[in-house]
């Protein structure tokens, strides 16, 4: 197994561990992730600050 494959496997295992968190903790993580993504998009060069985010389900 290459080091990259090992890294992917470790990452996948970490992701699966997150399933054991409480629903409330997962929602808080999702909130933090959403804010991080929004921040990255705001700071992206040439970002359209007036663009609406399309709703997702």
């Amino acid at each position, binding site marked *: 197994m290459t080091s990259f494959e090992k890294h992917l496997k470790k990452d996948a295992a970490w992701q699966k561990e*997150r399933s054991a*968190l409480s629903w*409330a903790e997962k*929602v808080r993580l*999702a909130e933090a992730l959403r804010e991080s993504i929004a921040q990255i998009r705001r700071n992206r060069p040439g970002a359209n600050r007036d663009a*609406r985010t399309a*709703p997702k*389900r």
Partner: protein
Amino acid sequence: MKELALLLNEMCAAGVITNYALFGAVAQMRYTEPVATVDADILVAVPSSERLDLLAPIYDFCSAKGYRPEGEAIRVGAWPAQFVPVFDRLTTEAVECAETADFEGAPLRVVRADHLAVIALSVGRAKDRLRVLALLESGSVSRAEVADLAQRHGLAEAWKGFEARFLDD
């Protein structure tokens, strides 16, 4: 999210909606690992399905409580909440059969894993396929349960196609 739970229960008590259930990514997280999502999707059953502006009473109720529209959603605390009136037998059943979970002390109705999977199957985008796979992998729903529910809602062929493409060797 707790603020949204309290609001939804208030809406039910006030008769603005007759029932509700969280679905989409936030509901999925109850069963799987956390996922990135922009908003909280809520299926709602409304008292009268004959008016054209089904969501107007919901918007009015929220506005009276200080919750403002944000695009196609209503901002409730940290979450944009997108209200979706039930639109077929599957979503109607999903709301009726939803489980009442405890979210930090507040009751919050959430669509069951099997209904989440079949709703995702019926929509069919790439992210919906990922949802089906994540729910199966989490063990919260089995292939047999999805097959049974898909069959009951006219999605047997869609499920067979999904199995052939993503699950069968």
